[in-house]
């Protein structure tokens, strides 16, 4: 290791970086744009559930139900009398769901044997399930009032003594804000893009342009070349991280309950992993297009889809769950979510960071072996 040589190379990398507007854009613009788009745009909150109520026969009870849905902010409901009409609306996507009250609803209510039918358009099942849950909650809340033969509104508590009160609380994200879980996910994607994608592309380009050929015929060691390349992109990644944290915390109010130093430290570790993967891929492919497609398949898509940020790992089939264990992003997602939302949970930190450290050293050593100063 010769500091003078490395610093010369780092200065060069840095100059090239600041003269390439695209890389700067990737470091600064991409995090900002992605976070803003996803933080504001991606939300699982369901509002404006479009519903049609089929009331074949007007009755006191049916009106109560209709009024209840009308006054509920989550629903946008209309009332029709014919089943056919409602089914037509459901077919044409004018409404998301259809609640049918039977003909003898009022009578059945008095007999305490009322049954209602709910038809949900389930071609997109995940929001459909949530919407279904909302309707069931509303109905469950309504039932005691209707059955207790008391006029609506006079009951003090919502439930009669036979009901069950469910206090539900969401820990770590009390208001169920989508942004809280999206921001850590986006940070993972950004660090993956800057670390692996940009690095593999820049390095493959140097192979293609022949710059590395003359670099190899200098006293530089191959580890020094790798180190210098990593340093600058590491810096860029850190800038991206900083911007993401800033936007996440100040704009979306994501709490930072863990120690910021640990968070940054863990992020550096993940950045080193993806930088090493980028370097490894570029020295294996030596071709920009192949490098990009390899990086997308081996790094970007898994970090997006198999890391547990969008899709729950436990819901995947067994072989995929095994596969996710070999994806560094999985450990980083776990670490980041905990660090932001929970705090310093030491067993979690130690487990994830030691796995990441193992990945980092493995890939760096592999990159160094695969990148001897030979063509």
């Amino acid at each position, binding site marked *: 290791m010769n500091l*003078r040589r490395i610093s*010369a*190379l780092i200065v*060069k990398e840095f100059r090239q970086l600041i003269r390439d507007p695209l890389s700067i854009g990737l470091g600064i613009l991409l995090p900002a744009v992605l976070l803003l788009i996803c933080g504001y745009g991606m939300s699982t909150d369901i509002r404006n559930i479009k519903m049609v109520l089929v009331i074949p026969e007007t009755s006191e009870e049916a009106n109560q139900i209709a009024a209840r849905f009308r006054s509920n902010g989550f629903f946008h409901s209309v009332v029709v009398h014919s089943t056919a009409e409602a089914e037509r609306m459901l077919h044409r996507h004018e409404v998301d769901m259809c609640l049918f009250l039977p003909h003898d609803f009022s009578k059945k209510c008095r007999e305490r044997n009322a049954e209602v039918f709910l038809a949900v358009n389930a071609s997109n099942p995940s929001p459909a399930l949530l919407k279904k849950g909302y309707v069931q909650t509303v109905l469950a809340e309504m039932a005691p009032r209707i059955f207790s033969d008391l006029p609506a509104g006079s009951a003090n508590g919502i439930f009669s003594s036979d009901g069950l009160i469910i206090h539900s609380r969401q820990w770590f994200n009390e208001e169920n804000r989508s942004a809280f879980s999206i921001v850590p996910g986006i940070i993972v994607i950004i660090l993956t893009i800057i670390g692996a994608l940009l690095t593999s592309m820049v390095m493959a380009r140097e192979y293609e342009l022949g710059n590395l*050929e*003359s670099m190899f*015929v*200098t006293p530089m060691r191959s580890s020094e070349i790798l180190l210098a390349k990593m340093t600058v992109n590491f810096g860029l990644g850190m800038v991206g991280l900083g911007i993401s944290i800033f936007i996440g915390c100040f704009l979306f109010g994501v709490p930072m309950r863990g120690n910021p130093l640990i968070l940054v430290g863990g992020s550096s570790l993940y950045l080193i992993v993806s930088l090493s993967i980028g370097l490894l891929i570029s020295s294996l492919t030596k071709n920009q297009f192949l490098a990009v497609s390899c990086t997308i398949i081996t790094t970007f898509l898994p970090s997006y889809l198999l890391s547990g940020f969008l899709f729950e790992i436990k819901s995947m089939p067994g072989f995929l769950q095994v596969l996710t264990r070999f994806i560094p992003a999985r450990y980083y997602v776990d670490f980041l979510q905990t660090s932001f939302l929970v705090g310093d949970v030491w067993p979690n930190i130690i487990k994830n960071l030691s796995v990441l450290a193992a990945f980092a050293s493995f890939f760096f050593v592999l990159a160094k072996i695969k990148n001897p100063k030979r063509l």
Partner: protein
Amino acid sequence: MIIECQNLSKTFKQGQEKVHALSDVSFELEAGKIIGLLGPDGAGKTTLMRHLCGLLRPDGGSVKVLGVDSVLGANQIQNQIGYVPQKFGLYENLSISENINLYARLHGVSDEELAQRVPRLLEITRLSRFTKRMAGKLSGGMKQKLALICALVSRPRLMLLDEPTVGVDVLARREMWSILRQFVEEEAMTIIASTAYLDEADYCDQTLILFEGRLLAQGTPDEIRKMAERFVEDPTFEEAFQLLICGSVPERLTRRNPVREDAPVRIEVQDLVQRFGDFTAVDHLSFQIRSGEIFGLLGANGAGKTTTFRMLCGLNQATEGKITVDGEPLARNLERMRSQTGYVAQKFSLYADLSVRQNMEFFGGAYGVRGKLLQERIDWAMETFQLKPFARMNAEKLAMGFKRRLAMACALLHQPSIVFLDEATSGTDPISRHEFWRKILDLADSGVAVIITTHFMDEAQYCDRILIMRDGLSIAVGSVDEICRQGGNAATLEEAFVNLVT
């Protein structure tokens, strides 16, 4: 002995086949000399260079550079040598001084030495004025000099230059060789340079001639020339080289139908101007090209040749001035004009992953040649350019000379009446170039207007008329003889060119 090479062999795998890039090459070289590495395309020059730098591992035999084995002591060798690869290895978005500083630091040159040495290097190469300019914005000649500085800055004992003069004009080439000579004398450096320009052999103390991976001959340029004396009187180096490789000396080419005075004017250019911002690349250029004429556009790198060329082809729009083809303005008849034009670009620009035949079928089809006619034309091209054995081979696998032939063939399939050749022979060996010019002369004899740019003065000899440009201006127009007269009654075209341009 600075280099000892023993029974060096290297094979590359290309798909199923094995290519013997070097087989059983042995030689020894003394220090303090300029050594020229000569050979046609695909002879193994670059592979040999890379072995000398320790970038490749030999399959057989061994290389000792500066007394060190190139496999075991690759780092030790790399600490002491300077290397300029074919693509120069400069960083395009770093300035001249940043590139120099980078390579100096990488080689561990101390700051004091840097301060002392760099101004002198810049002085010699006359780059002092441009130190802040980005390497990507330099002309070919300047890039070459910058690459040279980057390699020289660490006072290497051995310099390796891989085809440093490809695409560089006569002046810059002369300059480079004199700089190299200076360093050999002052610093007792040893220089090995590969080149496809045989006239440059005379700048070398020693030459190595490679052919198909084997070392054909080693000796001083005079010794090589002597080998040919039995066959030709007072042979040039080029003739000796061809004799060594093909076993015969080619005849000199002549025109059968010289262009007639009353031949119709095909292209007329009047007051052509091209500006890029404040910079005037082409400044009020006017000339005419007749049917059956070979018109040469010469000039140093950056004189505005390529810009003019691109405007003639309609790839760039002129800022001012008029280009007419057969009496009609170019801009309005671009597509019609293109359908009767053939174009061979400076860089190889055919589809590398298509076979020879597929390339021909495409370019024929693109110009609207089809059916039986297309088959006939392809047969003709295969025959004329001797491409038949390679018909099914992918274009990228062809040797440089054959790539050039293919490019030419593709440009001629539709029987164009105007042909543009932009440094179409650059990077090819003398044998291919000779073949090439035979075809060009045949074309002109049949009435095609040919416009060429080139850095080879021996090629320019074949032109009916030559226009020499400097800084966007036309400084001389006329036949070869007229140019020689205008260039201070010079004996050769090269002398005249140098006199006019400097």
